[in-house]
């Protein structure tokens, strides 16, 4: 309590959220772990879906996704949660190895690639589910 003014704020609260990440690091680390936890069952479910897709012809794949909700839901969840996880993980890698302009450029490219993959794949899965 060495504050010169008679403030009731603790010293920690006056510097909290002023570090290199401006307070976003905990959320970043937490989301990486929460999406990882969600992906454990999702990956196993998705692996079973892929097993059932191996060798299927066009009509059979169309029937699978348009007649049942399960396969499309699993695929959509796996893609959306997976892309969020991989974007967050790649941000960690970029921040470890790239600095300055390279870091900014790669972070933007990472966001764009992740957004593109998520949007295009999700739209394709939804299109399959509503009937080709």
């Amino acid at each position, binding site marked *: 309590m060495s504050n010169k003014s008679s403030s009731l704020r603790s010293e920690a609260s006056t510097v909290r959220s002023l570090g290199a990440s401006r307070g976003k690091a905990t959320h970043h680390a937490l989301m990486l*772990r929460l999406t990882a936890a969600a*992906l454990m069952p999702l990956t196993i479910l998705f692996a079973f879906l*892929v*097993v059932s897709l191996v060798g299927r012809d066009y009509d059979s794949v169309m029937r699978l996704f348009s007649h049942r909700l399960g396969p499309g839901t699993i695929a959509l969840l796996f893609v959306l949660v997976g892309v969020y996880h991989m974007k967050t993980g790649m941000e960690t*890698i970029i921040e470890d190895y790239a600095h300055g302009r390279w870091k900014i450029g790669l972070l933007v490219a990472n966001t764009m690639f992740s957004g593109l993959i998520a949007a295009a794949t999700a739209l*394709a899965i939804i299109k399959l589910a509503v009937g080709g």
Partner: protein
Amino acid sequence: MAEANNPSQRLQDRRPLSPHLEIYKMMFTMVMSGLHRITGMCLYAGTLLLAWYFIAAASGRGAFETVNWVYSSLLGRLVLFGFTWSLFHHLMGGVRHAIWDAGYMFDAEGRELAAKGTLVGSIVLTVIFWVLAYAYR
């Protein structure tokens, strides 16, 4: 204190550097740690394979038959095999990290056991996956 008087020297050049990979002896746990990141990056690139399959299926019969032909070719199967192994290796690595986050297996035997479990688990899961894939096709 010569550098302190030299304003042209950038702060970046005077930062202390921590030793990196090349000065350490290669160890099993180190390799497994590196593989977690490398498999993660492979999966990042591999989402293109996933996107291609679903986009082709949504685009029509012709596009779907092309992707189906590529994925059932020998090279296609080899790439898919690598993709599934990366997936299961990264999954098992995630389990190992969750155990560490919970505060367990930090000692030498624990680390070694967790690293071995990751490798064995990833191979077992990959083999089970492909046996099922061929049994159901």
